[in-house]
């Protein structure tokens, strides 16, 4: 009842950050979205996120919506409103492009994950086509070569923190490397912390080297 009759408070204008993290079930998108959310909370910001849980986790496409700001109501992002899309897989990044703002950023790993349906049919999913489409349609695009993550970090399981390293270095979310590192220390199991921090730095260095 406290809210009653405060006519002018139904909407407020304020700054917010909308980030979409997308990939295929099992790629570690949920941890990535948790690390972003934790970093925002550590700065005293309010967060809403939404995760894909349940049947579609079994090899299906998964997406996390991460929203940062004080006056956010919905856990889901509107079309045409995401500041950043972090794609763990080229086709999944393309799938969520309608959510991206006109001047938005896409950070994407180039490794395709072929669905079983693709192997069964004669149609071939071509990830190069997806990357080409992203190049043509995205204002700010960064493509991370997933093979190099595997080669340098020893496991493809840390693709998520490598992508976060790129994101942190690019500055699009406003979190520093130190802030991301702190979140990894808080949210990742002890024995996996070192490899995740290594991957974070690998992602950041790859970004900085490319931009240099």
């Amino acid at each position, binding site marked *: 009842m406290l809210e009653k009759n405060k*006519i002018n408070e139904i909407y407020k204008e304020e700054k917010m950050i909308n980030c979409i993290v997308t990939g295929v079930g099992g790629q570690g998108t949920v941890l990535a979205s948790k690390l972003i959310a934790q970093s925002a*909370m550590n700065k005293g910001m309010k967060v809403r996120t939404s995760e894909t849980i349940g049947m579609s986790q*079994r090899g299906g496409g998964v997406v996390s919506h991460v929203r940062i700001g004080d006056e956010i*109501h*919905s*856990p889901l992002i509107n079309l045409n409103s995401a500041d950043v899309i972090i794609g763990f897989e080229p086709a999944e990044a393309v799938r969520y*492009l*309608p959510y991206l703002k006109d001047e938005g950023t896409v950070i994407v790993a180039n490794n395709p994950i072929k669905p*079983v349906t693709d192997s069964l049919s004669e149609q071939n*999913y071509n990830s190069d086509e997806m990357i080409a489409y992203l190049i043509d349609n995205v204002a700010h695009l960064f493509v991370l070569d997933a093979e190099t993550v595997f080669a340098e970090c020893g496991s493809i399981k840390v693709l998520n923190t490598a992508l976060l390293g790129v994101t942190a270095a690019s500055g699009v979310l406003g979190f520093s490397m130190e802030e991301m590192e702190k979140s990894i220390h808080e949210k990742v199991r002890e024995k996996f912390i070192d490899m995740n921090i290594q991957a974070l730095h690998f992602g950041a260095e790859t970004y900085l080297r490319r931009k240099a």
Partner: protein
Amino acid sequence: MKMELLMGNQAIAMGAIRAGVGVVTGYPGTPSTEILETIAKKNPGNIYVEWSVNEKSALEVAAGAAYAGQRTMVTMKQVGMNVASDPLMSLAYIGVKGGMVIVVADDPGPISSQTEQDSRHFGIFAKLPVFDPSSPEEAYLMIGDAFEYSEKYNTPVLFRPTTRVCHAYATVQVDEACYQSNPEGFIKDSKWVIFPRLSYFNHIKIEERQPILSKDFSSYIYNSVIGTGKKGIATGGISYAYTREALSTLKSECKLFKVATPHPFPEELALEFLEGLEEVLVIEELDPVIEKELVYLCGKYNLKINIMGKLTKHIQNAGENTVDSVTQVIAKFLEIESPKPKEVMDLPSLPIRPPVLCAGCPHRASFYAVKKAMKGIKSVFSGDIGCYTLGNAKPLEMVDTCLCMGAGITIAQGLHRVEPNTINFAFVGDSTFFHTGIPGVINAVYNETDIVLIVLDNSTTAMTGNQPHPGTGRTMMGNVTEKIDISEVLKAVGVKHVVTINPFDLENAMKEVKIAAAFKGISAIVFKAPCIAVAPPSPLFFVDNAKCTGCKKCIKELGCPAIVKDGNKVKIDQALCYGCTLCENICPFHAIGGTDVGKK
């Protein structure tokens, strides 16, 4: 007080702990599962928590504890409420002493369910109060209110979040202090024994309580009316969040009615909302519950107000709302321009990713063994609820029917009565077998119906995230208990032919399927192999390029996500392979093997 990022389901659990809950029961089901799991994880030590065998048992265990004065909570998904509806309807007449909250999670979409049923109707049907949270942080506090209302009116209450509240995360201010309850214990009294005469008198009391609750809810903090104007929007649950978001996007205002307790409907507050309005748009998911209440009030008080919503086709009947769909409908209602949609993107054709059985999943081997053994023989495969429903997909195509928990066993019997010359298989998972499968088996034994029962025993409740069940020998209190052996249960209820075999022993598995199919009367095979999520992976497999002819039999027959086309040949994705051996067994050219074969 501290700020934590909590999933809606975690917030509900933490809120219940804060409210001093003492007994928590439930059965896993998306989107409700994490509530009970969080209770078990964050148990301060004084909470008894169990996965019950099914929702009916869960509700009854909790009711018993509430009779003894304990604060209790039951968790389930919407279809679980159907299973628990028998005790629910009667308990509504008996009532409780300790606060009892029945959390039933609805799934608009549906995203992971068989139905789009609206559990608010169960509140109306059983005449029980219903709470409908609109965000995780609200759920955290509202669950405590639900316990208080339950004790104030000595009635169980329903708490109905939806998927987008259950699986959303939000920053929640968490209280360190917990309410301390001291259950009085069970006091013998005839009021605990349901009889027709008692039900008659209690029915009168329940009807008398309805308007009192309605009045009480009109001043409940989470029911609210804000704004002014001649147009109003009535909404509740996650649709309230979407509405607020849409009004922000549209930079627009109108009168707004938030309904946190759809039953009994807060009539006084609703009349305050309707006062001076000409048009109302009702935004809700699933069924038009709020809408019908408002239409009813307009009739009752002779108000000339145009109520628009699902009944008038302004909102779609099926599927979930989104911020975008809500923004569009509100813009139209307020006669303002909706935000220009982004130029329609002409996206390239994207791969379709239906959910599939994991690489290494033992169900694939079981389905494959039955399929091969029954090749050319007229047979129908009845499936059930669980990961193994995914056996319906190509290339296995081994699920011909699927209805609800435990129904595969009995549907197979009905099919067989019409076509006795067909071999009728019923596939059931281990957790589903304990849930509602056993009575169906007894039915077949008793009525001498000749079906082949296949129990897919992967030693876990896999689809919902690997919960223990009576066959696993573990409880949510961390105890090791006796494992209930499914084959012994089958023998005990009179199944004369019962075989247990590992489905990855493909040749013998196929042989056993043929024997079971030929057996007169109900026969059963327990395919026993653990879910890859609970078993350590074996050595990975490789394709020997020199031997692979590119026939793609492995891809065409198994549909394993780890086997992919590689030019004219195939390769195994090492990130996905679990070394299950199934592909090695079926490769006609022996091109697939462990680390010794073709590793480069």
